[in-house]
């Protein structure tokens, strides 16, 4: 794998920020995740380290101790130089069921009109594309998805809504995504995902991780209602496909 010029900077006394060139690219993200894997498996094995990858950066946070920045920076540079793609990235493609019924897709017609396409064509384009998870943040389980086709770019709503329901699937600017909880939001709402993205009662509360891929598929209102029941009784399994990095 290609080596990138990386910059290492202090971020308070408990954290360090490593930045790659400022681009949204799968190759850069994969190098970040590969380095993260190398650090976790071979260099910073203790549980007190946390790793937060997002787009072109990796932040390392140490829970209790202070970091001696100069020494640590040198170590990180050496570790990056010695890294040999030995880590196998275990990425998945997640397929999320979305009901694009008018009951949920309150902005479908308006977005279709703005893009000058039919609602059917809009849903087709939105479900055809495969998105990359470039970061998880803002809210627990909120995925920053990259890879939206240019022809689906619409501005965010001029006035944000005070309440966007949990599971709402939105579109704004270069982004699309799912609201994991009810929250205020300014994205155009196309539909609702029938399965939870984040469950605080589970040991692993969010199955998706940075670097995974996401695709949506359209379901009917009846299927949506069925999924809700299956989730309720704990028998629903999200569709995931293992992919080779």
């Amino acid at each position, binding site marked *: 794998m290609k080596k990138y010029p990386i910059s290492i*900077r*202090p*971020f*308070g*006394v*408990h*954290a360090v*920020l490593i*930045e790659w060139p*400022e681009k*949204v690219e799968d190759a850069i993200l994969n190098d970040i995740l590969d380095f993260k894997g190398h650090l976790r498996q071979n260099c910073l094995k203790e*549980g007190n380290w*946390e*790793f*937060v*990858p*997002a*787009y*072109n*950066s990796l*932040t390392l*946070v140490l*829970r209790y101790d202070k970091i001696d920045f100069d020494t640590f920076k040198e170590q990180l540079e050496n570790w990056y130089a010695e890294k040999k793609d030995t880590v196998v990235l275990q990425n998945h493609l997640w397929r999320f069921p979305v009901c694009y019924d008018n009951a949920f897709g309150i902005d479908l017609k308006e977005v279709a009109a703005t893009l000058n396409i039919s609602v059917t064509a809009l849903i087709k384009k939105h479900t055809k594309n495969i998105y990359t998870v*470039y*970061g*998880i*943040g*803002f*809210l*627990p*389980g*909120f995925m*920053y998805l990259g890879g939206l086709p240019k022809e689906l770019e619409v501005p965010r709503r001029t006035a944000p809504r005070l309440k966007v329901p949990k599971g709402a699937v939105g579109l704004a600017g270069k982004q699309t995504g799912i609201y*994991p*909880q009810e929250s205020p939001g300014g994205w155009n709402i196309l539909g609702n995902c029938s399965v939870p993205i*984040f469950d*605080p*009662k589970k040991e692993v*509360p*969010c199955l998706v*991780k*940075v670097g995974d891929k996401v695709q949506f598929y359209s379901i009917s209102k009846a299927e949506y209602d069925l999924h809700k029941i299956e989730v309720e009784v704990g028998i629903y399994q999200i569709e995931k496909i293992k992919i080779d990095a």
Partner: protein
Amino acid sequence: MKKLKLMLKVLKSGFYTTIQDIGRFGFRDKGVPVSGIMDIETVYKLNALLENEEDAAVLEITMTGPTLDFEEDTFITLGGAEFLITLNNEPVDSYEVLKIKSGDILSYGRLKKGFRAYLAIKDGLKSQIFLGSRSYYPYINPKGIIKDRATIPYTKTSLFKPKLPELKVDNPLDEYVLAVGKGPEFTMLSDKQLEQLFFKEFTVANENNRMAYQLNEEISGHKVSMLTSATLPGTVQFTPSGKLIILMKDGQTTGGYPRILQLTDKAISILAQKKAGDTVLFRLI
């Protein structure tokens, strides 16, 4: 296994009383904030007096305090913001181990100074753990916010001889200087912006809570745009219009604004005791 049925009964909850511990770690990459005690410097002392583990859960009391009924014997310590506090109608002191007997009533009166008070209890509150922590956070542990008539479990302790029964505390509530390190985007600041940042005081805006403290005064704005990247409690975000937002314990784990400063742990504790209109000053370490 011993069954926990001894309860702290909440007769009156106060304005915003929550259960907090040292925080929720290991889930930042899933977007889960660290949460936990805002003024950790105070709680280290309160838990130390009780010889508790560091992660013992406490009550965080904001602006107006609760009235509490203890069902069983225990020991408690109080500290942080100064309130008029009474135990069975007798005033009690902070930073002192207090013996509690079954049926005792602890009552918070008027807030005198600071913003967040803490009540620590021998062996900690034993509420439910979510993702490794008892700390309140809306989407993860909605029951961590205390309502009237709530009950919170704790373990009975009748005998305890504290090694140190009380502590003299130099009151940190008067401190207003926030020690800060350079944030990752510090180098973007011009001489003019640096002067605005470090040579004048800022006042805390009405928009202040466990997620973030906004400041009223703005500095000269900028046009820097960056890709979303990690944020931490104590990160000072700098919006294009020149507004400063200091993320706190429930703050989001990622953000898209330049991170120009990073508060020390102690500075976060100092800021946690400030309310709207209070003054702060940044000092670079």
